[in-house]
């Protein structure tokens, strides 16, 4: 039996299958979510652990946001033993947007919608096997109009 997209979404919402998503504020350092500085947010979360750029992270996001208030961000990674996926938006008043923590044998996947006030980089940090990896992408937020 194939399962339709709508049914899948309905079930996913109902059962919370797939990844185990815990309310980020409970898990991460409160201070990290409240700071207005990008570097400090990273510091609070990961102290001084080095973060390396990885091509094993797929960061899916629009090139130009259709609506800056709801920008869909999807993160996928092939890295084994994913512990967390963290999403930051460099130019947001509070750059740390979300952290997803994982437990057990799960696929490193997270999808969420974030609010962006203007054009800027979105950075994703994946913690896997105790190491930190990152990927980033610039997303344009425009006032629109004038298309040919």
């Amino acid at each position, binding site marked *: 039996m*194939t399962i*339709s*997209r*709508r049914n899948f*979404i*309905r079930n996913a919402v109902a059962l919370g299958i797939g990844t185990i998503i815990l309310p980020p504020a409970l898990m991460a350092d409160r201070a990290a979510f409240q700071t207005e500085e990008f570097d400090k947010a990273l510091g609070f979360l990961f102290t001084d652990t080095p973060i390396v750029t990885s091509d094993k992270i797929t960061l*899916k996001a*629009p*090139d*130009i*946001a*259709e*609506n800056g208030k709801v920008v869909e961000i999807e993160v996928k990674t092939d890295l084994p033993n994913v512990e967390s996926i963290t999403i930051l938006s460099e130019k947001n008043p509070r750059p740390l947007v979300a952290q997803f923590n994982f437990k057990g044998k799960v696929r490193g996947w997270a999808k969420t919608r974030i609010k962006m006030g203007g*054009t800027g980089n979105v950075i994703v940090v994946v913690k896997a096997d105790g190491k930190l990896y990152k990927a980033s992408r610039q997303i*344009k937020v*425009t*006032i*629109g*109009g*004038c*298309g*040919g």
Partner: protein
Amino acid sequence: MGRAGAKPTILKDSVVPTLRKIIFFLVPTRRRGNPVWTRQRPVFLVPVHQHPVLADRDAGASPLHSHAGAWEREKSISLQNSFSQKKMNRREFIHLMAVASASGFLPKSFAEMQRDFYDIPNFGQVRLLHFTDCHAQLLPIYYREPHVNLGIGESKAPHIVGDKLLQHFGIKPNSLEAHAFTYLNYQQAAETYGKVGGFAHLATLINRLRDSYGREKTLLLDSGDTWQGSGTAYWTRGQDMVEACNRLGVDVMTGHWEFTYLAKEVLANIKKFQGEFVAQNVLVKEEALFEGVPAFDEDSGHAFKPYTMRDLNGVRVAVIGQAFPYTPIANPARFIPDWTFGIRESEMQSLVDTVRTQEKAEIVVVLSHNGMDVDLKLASRVTGIDVILGGHSHDAMPKPSHVKNNDGTTLVCNAGSSGKFLGVLDFTVKEGKVKDYQYRLMPVFANLLAADRKMQTYIEKVRMPYLSKLTEKLATTEQVLYRRGNFNGTYDQLICNALRVQSDAQIALSPGFRWGATLLPNQEITMEDVLNQTCITYPETYTQEMSGSQIKMILEDVCDNLFNSDPYWQQGGDMVRVGGMDYTCDPLQPINKRISGMTLDDGTPIDMSKRYKVAGWATVKNQSPGKPVWEIVADYLRDQKVVKLDKINTPKLLNVKGNPGIVDYNYN
């Protein structure tokens, strides 16, 4: 749609032909002099469901059947039309002779002349015919190509204009082609060669090129921007164009301005369209799917069929649709709230792989409304596409660009706009692969192609209920009125002047669209001409106070959409047009650093913190409160009577001298 349910009972099949006969004889289709229009019904009192051609009278019949019915009815009526096969009148003959001598033809018969210019030898096994961005121009028009079409970074097609374009493509100066592809010597050449496009003339050319090749071996493809751009398209919500495309024989299309009607209207129009509407990059939003909004494929979320497979002459051809990726940004999202767009490059790659491996496609075509710069980048990153037949940026490129990628070469074509061109692409395929091709972008000169009688009759009928409104004479122009180009065209200046005067504003802003027909000096400006430049489904005007810094932010934002060095960040329109102010622009700078030296017309610097009264139209976010812009422009023209522009608010440009995308520009 409920349209069928709303139709009045009087329009029964048996009554309609009689009614239409009466209408037909009451309202002559061509007039000279100053006719009195009182016998015509006021234009806004003809809803689509009562339209003599478009009214869908076969309640309960499938859209396909209702079309066939309409065509049969049409045929019976056209028999009464005294229009005989195209015979030249004296004026047309003189015109033709002028064209002939100017283009180096010997004076020959009309048929022979056609053969010279439009006879294309057959090549290969499959012929694709392609047009784009006709913007609902059913009748022949003038369309001036740009003298400013700057490219940032590499100087290459499509960012070459004038002489540089002629040299690049090896086109003879002062030839018919030179006139078609460039602005050079525009007025004189346009007066000599006459109007371009028109669906009746396009139909003649298309039919010839299909019949001579073998109809079953050809496809007619349309990259979109077909349902918008004229008064009749606006009043019929794009239906006049759907029907015209059915008659033209369009097999596959994709879209952009198509999405500026309401979603339910878009779906109804697609249902009436006898070809296929394809788009791999339009998805139904997840929450909308959840609420039961219909999708072509609920599992994939595709709002429309992503691609279609055709067997032509034993060759498997895949046509993948790519709608304009930034539709809900460049145009109002409120009309189509449940659909989400985007370039979706990785999805494109997997779709190409799918059609190659599973569908055994031998030719993979992407029918695109990306705009040429985006197409060029896409072609360099996605492998396995044979050709991208594109539109949106209105670039008329005589030859395809060859783009290398990791797995071969992709051809990128862009076929201009306004019905002015027809792309003809013939392929040779061997052992499941494209071996060779021939491409031509044929200009459609109305004087060189007889009008197709059936199409002509259809066009006349579709216009009939609106004729008095369309033909209202508003003013005459003393100069060429055009729009296309990166900065203010003369037509934009006219619109900005009208906005400023009618709204008593200091500054006017007008969108940098690329569509809109050109007018020649001494031509009358009719309401139809104004609609051809302004007709959109969000035409409302506004007058509001903006600070200098707000105005600068708008200019910077739009300028970045035009000159961002990454094509995926460009939206394909031109720079916002301004009236009442001047500025300096440095296209090579990054965002927020391109615009400087903003002044009012009298030279007073614009203060970033001071507020100014600004008029404009075409707001994307919310509906503006003012009158439709065409009413503002029409009122202004009725007052002015003669258009003579003293000042064009084109910016001072920095760092672009020598760029092949700009010539004849007053840099000061």
